[in-house]
């Protein structure tokens, strides 16, 4: 970490801020890895299976299942790329956070209705036998991811980010 100059109009960066900027980088890499992997795992799967994973929640009407099944993996991968690059970090983090909220709500809904499904979070999905569900674990895991996204919403400003190159933090 090279010492750095006070920027125009910005005054000195406190050590705490420097520290935070690097934590944000770590969080970005972690969140991008999780999201990117989740998206890729779904994306590389047989298309029929993707649709089954979505329809097994029995939430979306039939006509919407296919676009969601095909679009969601790409959405996850695109958001992962943006987060990794640090491009519009705060807005992208909000999108990711919303996505996780939707996922968690979906799992809770499936649980509450007594469905026996796999969340299909990292590919797979669809019906599983009674007693083979892991809803609580899936929800806690997604809550953990939500915390990462929340960090980025609060502290989007980080090193090695496109936002910085584009001059988002000049003031």
């Amino acid at each position, binding site marked *: 970490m090279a010492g750095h100059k006070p920027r125009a*109009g910005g005054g000195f960066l406190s050590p705490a801020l420097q520290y935070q900027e690097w934590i944000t980088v770590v969080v970005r890499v972690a969140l991008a890895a999780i999201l990117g992997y989740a998206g890729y795992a779904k994306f590389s*799967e*047989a*298309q*029929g*299976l993707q*649709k*089954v994973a979505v*329809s097994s929640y*029995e939430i979306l*009407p*039939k006509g919407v299942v*296919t*676009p969601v099944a*095909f*679009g969601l993996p*790409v*959405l996850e*991968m*695109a*958001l992962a790329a*943006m987060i990794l690059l640090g*491009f*519009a970090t*705060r*807005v*992208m983090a909000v*999108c990711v956070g919303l996505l996780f909220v939707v996922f968690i709500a979906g799992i809770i809904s499936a649980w509450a209705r007594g469905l026996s499904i*796999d969340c299909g979070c990292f590919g*797979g*999905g*669809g*019906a*599983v*036998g009674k007693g083979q569900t892991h809803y609580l674990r899936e929800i806690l895991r997604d809550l953990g991811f939500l915390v990462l996204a929340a960090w980025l919403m609060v502290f989007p400003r980080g090193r090695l980010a496109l*936002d910085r190159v*584009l*001059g*988002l933090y*000049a*003031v």
Partner: protein
Amino acid sequence: MSKAARQRSARERLAEERRHQAQKQQRARMLMISLSALVIVALAVVITVYFANKKDPNAYTGAFAPASRQSDEAVLMGKPGAKAPKLELFEDFQCPICHEFEKSSGNTIKRLAAEGKVNVLYYPFWLFKQQPDPVRGNSQRAANAALCAPADKWVQYHDLIYKNQPAEGSDGFSNKDLIGWAKSLGFDNPAFEKCVNGSQKQGQLDQMTNYAEQTRKVTGTPTVYLDGQSLDLSGTLLNPANLEKAILAAQPMDLSPSTSPSTSPSTSPSVSASPSGTAKK
């Protein structure tokens, strides 16, 4: 006010103005960056969905191989006299994964059958008889109608039934619709209508279900046996390229449509568990 003071306040105003300007620029830049990021993400998704929806590399438009009804009510689709691997499909018309399987691999199966590279046996049965209505009744009516349908239009009828599969938990496959689809395929007649409306094939349906569940140990659908070997769902059944490979690599069997069909299966399947994720009973 002294001259110096006036100058200072003017400088301050100017600085204030500049700061204000810079902030405004910053906000505009932020907005631009955010918007372009959102647009990029949205475009990526929309483009993928568009192309994923369009592409159907396995579309098969050729003629179907001739179909005939076996003595156990299964429908055999295959080139007459073809010595080819035997593919047995155990399906419930109300099963969503069967529908997915038909959509992703149905074309490949039909093409291979027409080329004489596989003999396909369809076993429509009533997997969902212990489910609550409407699933139970939907499943029953569709299977009954399929058993009423003549063999030469059977595969087309089977496709049409799947195409109109009601969403899980909603009513569908009404006898009226089932007769309507027969009409559109040109094989509707009073006998067929009576067969559908009177559930005249219930006995055969029970037999078929019994055969699937007791004899062949089918516990979920789709269960597909290739030369008696159960195929896995995600790797093979929903992946037409792998399915084709598996079929082409399988042992041809003598199963000419003209010879009398075997009423008892010669071999019990070595793998009889249902594919994972489909245990749905």
